[in-house]
């Protein structure tokens, strides 16, 4: 009996039909541009110059100049991501209720289009020792160009990550904030909840899963910082982030194997943080943020 059912029907029952073929270009692209290079790098990282299997990893975790880059990068990426998120939530709440929402959103999102190098150039001028910012501060008697330093150190990279990362964080947050039914806030208000109570008891629990995803995406972006760490930071010391270590291994020592290992470690750190944050979502309600069924 089984054999009388045509193959086409049996495949379709398992979700394979003509439309499945449309996925082929994307699959090929993924294999060529992601899967192959990733596997190549993974294999390469286990073939160090000294011939031992874990040689690169052993080298990385025994050399403070290398393993400290993990913390240097985390020390930048985590505060930047938290700050962006904390800043994006109130702005998103305000913008949601504004009449010119699209205009304001466009203005806030503009830095995304500029690119890190352009932002870095602008910041070098604006926040530099002879820039307007420092000069204005010293005119106001709040410091002197020699006492305030906002570029070529930790703060230079920090600021540039905030500027380029905020629009992205904000856009995601806005979409989550807009997804919460306004009637919920009205209902809470009629029941006697003031603004702060409405935020903590209604909005935050409903936003938490979305904020977790926003945190992950923003964090991954910030963790892979490279151009601004070089241009605006102190790449030899305080802002020697993990991508710089990988770059130096590859293009200054020509040790592609070590560079691959560093890249794998970088990916693993990101994965640990992302998985950790996403798992914490299970502590929160994750259904639709509306007041009723459809």
């Amino acid at each position, binding site marked *: 009996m089984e054999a009388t059912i045509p193959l086409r029907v049996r495949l379709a029952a398992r979700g394979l039909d003509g439309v499945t073929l449309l996925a082929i270009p994307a699959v090929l692209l993924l294999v060529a541009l992601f899967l192959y290079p990733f596997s190549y790098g993974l294999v390469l990282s286990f073939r160090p110059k000294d011939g031992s299997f874990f040689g690169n990893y052993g080298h990385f975790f025994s050399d403070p100049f290398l393993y400290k880059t993990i913390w240097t990068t985390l020390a930048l990426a985590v505060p930047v991501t938290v700050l962006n998120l904390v800043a994006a939530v109130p702005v998103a709440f305000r913008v949601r209720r504004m009449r010119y929402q699209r205009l304001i959103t466009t203005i806030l999102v503009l830095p995304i289009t500029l690119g890190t190098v352009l932002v870095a150039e602008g910041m070098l001028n604006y926040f530099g020792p002879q820039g307007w910012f420092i000069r204005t501060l010293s005119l106001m008697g709040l410091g002197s160009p020699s006492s305030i330093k906002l570029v070529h150190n930790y703060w230079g990279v920090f600021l540039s990550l905030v500027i380029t990362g905020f629009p992205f964080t904000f856009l995601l947050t806005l979409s989550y904030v807009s997804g919460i*039914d306004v*009637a*919920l806030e*009205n*209902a*809470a*208000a*009629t*029941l*006697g*909840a*003031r603004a702060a*109570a409405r935020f903590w*008891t*209604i909005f935050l*629990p*409903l936003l938490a899963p979305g904020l977790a995803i926003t945190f992950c995406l923003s964090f991954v972006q910030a963790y892979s910082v490279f151009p601004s760490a070089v241009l605006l930071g102190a790449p030899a010391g305080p802002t020697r982030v993990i991508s710089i270590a990988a770059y130096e291994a590859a293009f200054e020592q020509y040790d592609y194997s070590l560079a691959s290992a560093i890249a794998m470690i970088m990916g693993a750190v990101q994965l640990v943080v992302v998985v950790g944050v996403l798992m914490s979502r299970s502590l*929160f*309600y994750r*259904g*639709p*943020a*509306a*007041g*009723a*069924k459809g």
Partner: protein
Amino acid sequence: MGSHIAFQSLRLEKVGRTFGAMNALQDLTLDIKRGEFIALLGPSGCGKSTALNCIAGLLATTSGAIWLDNVRIDTLAVEDRGFGMVFQNYALFPHMTVRSNIGFGLRMRGVAKAELERRVDAAIRTVRLESQAHKLPGQLSGGQQQRVAIARAIAIDPPLVLMDEPLSNLDAKLRLEMRQEIRRIHQDLGGVTIYVTHDQDEALSLADRIVVLRDGMIRQVGTPEDLYLRPAHIDVAEFMGFRNRLSGVLEGVGTVAPMTRASAMFGETLLEGVALHALSGGSVTAAIRPDDLTPVSATSPGIEAVVEAIEYRGRDFFGSARSASGAELFFRSGAALDRGASVRLNADPGKILFYEGAGA
């Protein structure tokens, strides 16, 4: 639920709300006594939801005042009014169980735990949701969600419960059941309920008094019986089921109390009817319920029309017909009629209401 709510009246004094140049609500004046169930009735855009939101405090008024006894409340923030509100889409907090939804208002008031549990239990019993108390709103049916919304609003023992078309998302059978529930809960609470609806059946069956709104203004305030039998305005009449509107010319006016007897020519036909307001002559509009307009014998006066459609609704037939002047008439008939047949339609003079003017 105890009826320990201590107030005597809620007064709306010329309450108004404008949006830019548009008057969404004008001069809403209403004196509501404790224990009354008031329905705000009107088509969409008539200002009934605006009125409700103004009373709730979700929308600021632009003129007038609202008083609870002698406390002015329209200047208070929403949170400080302490009214219960039931929203059209329920607006239940999706991340809280039924119990914590219902207890939310009490928690916000800092009610002690034992007292809180007792009052939440009472509210859950009132809406008969004992077995669902620990579920999330998303796991409940529409009717159950509506009960939670009502329980949440009444758990705080509000002097005033506001309901914004609470039954419009439910199916017909559930609507009828919930109507009775809402009426019962209102009587248990003993406060004032203000109920917004566009469904005249709901308003007629639930309310002690109905306020008919149109274009942001009150058209008529009265008991369901008042409105049903004596609609003061042609718009109200239409809302109360007077589907037939005929334009005619006034012929004669009598004076039989309490209504004025009058007769008017509609095309070739002279019809007798009654008027609630003085008629000054000239053009009049007659309003007749389909139920009252029936075929009459060929010798008695009536409007000649041709049957266009007819359907059986158990017991009687209801149909539509076209008069010689082109007006569409809806009528009732005890017997089946053929499409295309000629009928002569008339109603008892007491069931034909005359209004001044040609109507719209």
